[in-house]
């Protein structure tokens, strides 16, 4: 069927609206990129929109000279990679075991999990538990408390249940044990949904600063987001109190912050288009996320 006149008008307005919507998201982001390439003192005069006015690389050179940022990147990369693998193995293994209706204790486990979805110990009791386990100022504080998620487990379990039993049966006849079946058959078949959970957990690990704010005082363990958080929150006070401390005429606290924001965000922006198709299909499998 062709388009009627009303539909054509609707489509024109729709496209115009979408262009407006896209620009509201994109232009402010480009503004930060432009500022990060601009001379900091010049930027303070205002009026910079989408292009740098006095182009410079000095902001990036300055922040990349600071070795603590590499350390923070390393911590973040480590906690993201280890966190994602650990989360998938622990949560995935539980999901596989619980996808078997004959598993002893299955009902009790699921009921316990549902309780945790409605009742939550809250920030303070959780804090006291994590502290008493000796996880404060310990790299594993980023990993261990979030190894298991009941929510992700349910998504994976529902997916595993939808896989045909016969493939597993034939592998078992060929002499494969449960672990071999899980890693060699189930995991490869579940790639989209595993990739989705991995992406969500990876983004959480990459973006989280609050765990560090709560538990970490050792600077060597700061993740990049907490490093940036400190740079942003302490800088407001520092720039007004100690204006003129910088000898350089090229950068300001603000221009350094802008460059750091770009450097911190770049890995996610680069990796995200490649993962987009997985999280969309994975969200459909899982139903509701968040």
């Amino acid at each position, binding site marked *: 069927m062709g388009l009627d006149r*009303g539909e054509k008008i609707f489509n024109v307005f729709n496209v115009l609206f979408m262009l407006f919507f896209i620009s509201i998201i994109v232009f*402010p982001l480009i503004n930060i990129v432009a500022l990060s390439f601009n001379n900091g003192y010049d930027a303070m005069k205002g009026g910079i*929109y989408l292009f740098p006015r006095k182009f410079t690389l000095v902001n990036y050179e300055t922040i990349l000279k600071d070795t603590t940022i590499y350390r923070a990147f390393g911590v973040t990369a480590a906690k993201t990679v280890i966190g994602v693998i650990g989360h998938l193995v622990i949560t995935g293994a*539980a999901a596989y075991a619980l996808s078997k209706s004959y598993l002893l204790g299955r009902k009790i486990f699921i009921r316990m999990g549902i309780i945790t979805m409605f009742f*939550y110990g809250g920030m303070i009791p959780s804090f*006291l538990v994590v502290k008493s386990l000796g996880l404060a100022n310990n790299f594993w504080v980023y990993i261990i408390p979030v*190894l298991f998620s009941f929510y992700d487990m349910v998504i994976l379990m529902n997916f595993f249940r939808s896989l045909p039993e016969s493939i597993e049966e034939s592998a078992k006849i060929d002499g494969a044990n449960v672990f071999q079946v899980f890693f060699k058959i189930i995991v490869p078949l579940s790639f989209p949904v595993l990739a989705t959970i991995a992406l969500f957990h990876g983004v959480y690990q990459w*973006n989280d600063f609050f765990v560090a704010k709560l538990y970490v005082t050792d600077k060597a363990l700061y993740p990049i987001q907490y490093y940036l958080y400190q740079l942003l929150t302490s800088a407001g006070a520092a720039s007004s109190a100690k204006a003129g401390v910088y000898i350089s005429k090229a950068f300001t606290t603000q221009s350094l*912050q802008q460059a750091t924001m770009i450097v911190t965000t770049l890995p996610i922006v680069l990796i995200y288009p490649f993962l987009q198709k997985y999280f969309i299909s994975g969200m459909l499998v899982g139903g509701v996320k968040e």
Partner: protein
Amino acid sequence: MKSTFKHKFLSQWELQVMVWPSIILMIVFSFVPMFGLTIAFQDYSPLSGFAGSEFVGLDNFKAFLGDKDFYTVLTNTLGISLMKLLIGFPLEIVLAILINQIRLGLFKKFTQTVSYLPHFLSWVILGGMITSWLGSTGLLNSFLLSTHLISEPLSFLSNANAYWWIATLSDIWKEVGWGTILYLAAITGIDPSLYEAAKVDGAKILKRIWYVTLPGIKNIIVLMFLLRVGSILGANLDQTLVLQNSSNMLRSEVIDSYVYHLGLAQGDFSFATAVGIFSSVVSVTLLLVANFLTKKLSDSSIF
């Protein structure tokens, strides 16, 4: 009987090995803190510990219910959440419907890619960006000055009265695109013949959206609405921590940040835990009431 249990257990030992680490994690990080909630009824001191602290009954609850700061914080939490709900929630649905109407596949995909992107930025990054955009020489002031809408730069972030709007609009900017994914998925599931039939009956595009698309995604709308109502007292802590400053404190402190500041910055563990319990109880109650009402009105619900 016992031997069959043992026999069964041993025959599935691999599966048991796979599930036990998760059970232990759940007990340690979910159930132990639930028992830790009893410190709300104590005058907890880290020195005397959980067992040695004095039991004070409901004193902590009485203390915050009699405290006027608490009502400021409660008002802020409700105000910001309601603004996010009233503006952000319908906007997601409208945006999903409009994105679905885009006919050019490539443009549609591009719009989606762009709209999901801000969701992946952390609140720390966004906090820094907002400070930059709203600064005295930032994007917004530059624009308003150059168009002569204002004659002097406005200081948005230190104006307490602007905070609710900044919190609401920044949250919408970050999450509105992401919020469309589930609606888009639901729209895809609508039977195309319903649209054809409506078209044959002479329904114009807006009528088709109103009578076919919206009823087709009604269940997911109700579900998302209920989840939002249930989390109305949980205004985003990360957002508050990055946007808050001493001059907007009066309008920016919400329950979660209040609990954080009292409990972890000032060490008043028992008082903060009591506030946390209050917030959870209200949230669960709200969820149940909203669920009951939607069940009455529209026969779709979570439970």
